[in-house]
């Protein structure tokens, strides 16, 4: 057999029902059953293939799921465990190549070009080996696409799921794209698909066969990149750097039941501000302005953008502005269900001496928050928080499902606490 031709060998590795699989992998009692995560949010965040087969879809409301699938096992999200397993996914792939782009919590790209010689295996065999190692060491499956670039690799990993391995060599592109609707392509949304349909382009292959000068002239730059990749070229490089600088940081949290109480709602906003500031300080960044958001029960949003006296990452400096914004957008006798805090145009955090403002006071605040961050590192996040966030901390975000925290938070070893646990995923269930 002639070896498949690859000028570049790019992988896209995609978790199969990642969160639900994390749950099924640690507790065999969940294996083969419809499992849904996202209980605390009231909607399905992830569902096992058994649940998908019963018609459960992403973001479906829990009451609807219970009607559709009465035996569904609905679990609160355990993001701590999911994040640990996500890190393990990336670490395992990095055993094979250092060129790994962490694209999402449950997916990554990897460039294995040139590794066929040292591994003495062809690209398909290497891909199989990675896929098998992931299954063995993480206990659940991933679908993988192997292709000459990112756009094709991402299409390939979706081709067959779960546990699919789809190889698209340069010579196999045309048959692969033939019956694929154009909106399945990564980066082509509904609007663009509708635009392309007007030119008679419905399949990915029709788009790939479009004349280049027309693509360049009629469409924007990103679509020309996609067009080139569909034709086998590699134009989108892998982003290998770990994120060390953010352009924006957003904290948006829903709570149940919805509330009319301004003190409670403001405490939720205050907690979001504190959370965003923790992240800003971790990356030593500051925000010059921010958007405050309130979402009502009927999904209306009130939004207010406000600047600060100086770029900051200290909650007390933000809070006075937040209060003013809150008073302007809060409506009495309205049920709210979420608050949000968005920072953007972020800058590196430097203390500029200011002749008019009391920079001594700011320095004191900075010292205080440096200590607070140290305490958090030792005793857990939110060991210290502002009094204005108290009500939000008192009940957790979701009163109705109170008492149903992730099981791991109540299964503690000596020396662990609800705030700090060992950073190793735990196998659970009866019978050990």
């Amino acid at each position, binding site marked *: 057999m002639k070896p498949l031709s690859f000028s570049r060998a790019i992988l896209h590795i995609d978790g199969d029902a990642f969160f639900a699989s994390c749950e099924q992998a640690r507790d*065999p009692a969940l294996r083969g059953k419809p499992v849904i995560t996202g209980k605390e949010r009231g909607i399905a965040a992830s569902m096992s293939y058994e649940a998908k087969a019963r018609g459960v879809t992403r973001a479906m409301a829990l009451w609807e799921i219970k009607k559709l699938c009465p035996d569904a096992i609905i679990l609160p999200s355990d993001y701590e465990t999911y994040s640990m397993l996500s890190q*393990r996914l990336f670490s395992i792939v990095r055993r094979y190549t250092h060129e790994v782009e962490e694209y999402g919590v449950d997916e990554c790209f990897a460039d294995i070009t040139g590794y066929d010689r040292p591994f003495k295996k062809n690209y398909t065999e290497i891909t199989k080996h990675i896929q098998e190692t992931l299954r063995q060491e993480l206990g659940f499956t991933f679908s993988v696409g192997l292709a000459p670039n990112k756009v094709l690799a991402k299409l390939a990993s979706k081709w067959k799921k779960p546990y699919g391995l789809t190889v698209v060599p340069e010579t196999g592109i045309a048959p692969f794209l033939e019956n694929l609707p154009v909106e399945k392509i990564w980066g082509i949304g509904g609007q663009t698909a509708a635009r392309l349909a007007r030119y008679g382009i419905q399949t990915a292959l029709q788009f790939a066969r479009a004349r280049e000068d027309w693509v360049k002239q009629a469409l924007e730059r990103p679509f020309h990149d996609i067009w080139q990749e569909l034709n086998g070229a590699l134009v989108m490089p892998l982003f290998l750097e770990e994120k060390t600088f953010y352009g924006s940081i957003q904290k948006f949290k829903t709570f149940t039941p919805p509330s009319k109480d301004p003190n409670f709602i403001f405490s939720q906003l205050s907690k979001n501000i504190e959370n965003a500031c923790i992240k800003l300080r971790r990356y030593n960044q500051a925000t010059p302005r921010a958007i405050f958001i309130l979402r009502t029960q009927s999904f209306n949003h009130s939004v207010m953008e406000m600047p600060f006296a100086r770029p900051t990452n200290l909650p007390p400096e933000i809070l006075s502005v937040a209060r003013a914004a809150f008073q302007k957008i809060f409506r009495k006798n309205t049920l709210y269900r979420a608050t949000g805090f968005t920072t953007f145009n972020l800058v590196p955090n430097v203390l500029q001496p200011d002749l008019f403002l009391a920079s001594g006071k700011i320095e004191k605040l900075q010292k205080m928050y440096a200590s607070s961050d140290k305490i958090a590192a030792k005793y857990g996040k939110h060991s210290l928080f502002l009094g204005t966030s108290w009500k939000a901390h008192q009940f957790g975000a979701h009163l109705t499902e109170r008492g149903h925290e992730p099981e791991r938070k109540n299964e503690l070893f000596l020396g662990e606490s609800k705030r700090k646990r060992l950073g190793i995923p*735990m*196998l659970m269930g009866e019978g050990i």
Partner: protein
Amino acid sequence: MTTPKYFSSIARFYRERKRLPSYREMLKLTGFRSTNAVYRLVERFRQADLLTKDAAGKLIPGKRFRELRILGTVEAGWPSPAEEELIDTIGLEDWLIHNREATYMLKVSGDSMIDAGIRPGDMLLVERGRTPKEGDVVIAEVDQQWTLKYFQKRGRQTILVAANKKYSPIIPQDELNIAAVVTAVIRKYHT
């Protein structure tokens, strides 16, 4: 002052004056009241090869005098554990965990391995994807539950044996799923 500190003040004197202090000067450096005490200190340094005497009977730096200074420990005091000496040590976590990405923990709830010293409440570190060997303690999946047993062979047949007479061996009818091999048992008594 401690012995290392006496040595570092002598070493500092040597660095500044390019010679060792006399007994009288050492009296001042150390704060001792009698030359006898200084003599005993010098004898200790001589035994440690930090100081020695030349043909004329005068004190000169010993073999290890320079060595200590090179390590940068003179200022800090006695040969304290220098970084160079710690290169060959490993942390408890690295010692316990062989394959980080494949290691999970679990809490023992039953008494099926009590005679192997594994008690309810103990923490197990287990490795997924490792091929079990005869006599390993393993986590197997039986009837949609984890079970903790010895992995043993009876002829070609694999059996799961408890370390507790109360339980009889499990002889799997069809395919047996060994999820992980136990690599360590941890019991913590105090915080």
